[in-house]
């Protein structure tokens, strides 16, 4: 299945854009997606365990089952304010 990954913070630098398309097996979880992305870059592999994942306005756990067409947001550690 095809999904879309929205890259925030430094994940954009590792994945080369704000939005990327990813192809996964038809049965896949957030964990499977993160494992696939981790294989692309060693630095990203270190960061991903510290990234939360959201679909729409909801945070989802690593066990969440993905569906074709999902837009999955990768949220690295945050640092708003001053």
């Amino acid at each position, binding site marked *: 299945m095809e999904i879309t990954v*929205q890259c*925030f*913070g*430094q994940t954009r630098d590792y994945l080369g854009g704000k939005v990327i398309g990813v192809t996964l097996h038809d049965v896949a979880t957030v964990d499977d997606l993160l494992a696939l992305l981790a294989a692309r870059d060693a630095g990203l592999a270190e960061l991903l*365990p*510290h*990234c*939360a994942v*959201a679909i*729409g*306005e909801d*945070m989802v*756990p690593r066990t969440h089952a993905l569906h074709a067409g999902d837009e999955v*947001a990768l*949220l*690295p*550690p*945050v*640092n*708003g*304010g*001053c």
Partner: protein
Amino acid sequence: MSTDARLRDTPLSLDELLDATERPDCGAAATFTGVVRNHNDGRDVTHLIYTAHTPLAEKLIREIEEEVRLKFDVPECRVVHRLGELQVGDAAIVAVVRAGHRGEAFDAVRAVVDAVKHRVPIWKEEFFTDGTSQFVEGCSLVEGES
């Protein structure tokens, strides 16, 4: 500044936030303004760029405001965070708490700013005088990790 949005890509106004939260029954108005500084970790900063997962950040800031209103029993608690490119001296975040008395107002304004910094998907990229940039180390949103 809209009285509603919690994220703005235009300059912030503490006065407008004070006007929007005015109440005759509150004897205290505690405010906080976070301002871009010209250095961090010994390096000279030229400017910052803030980005956010906007829908989620809007939702979480409103949830945090409500948590703080209930926890500290304060009737008004509002935060607005700036996005986009900011120069040294620009306001990055403004917060207002109105309460009956100063004690809970001071406590609540500190709590709401801390919570926004730690829990809302906003990222700060610092740009330095040598032309390089980096994302500031932050707080994980992964459940159980922060």
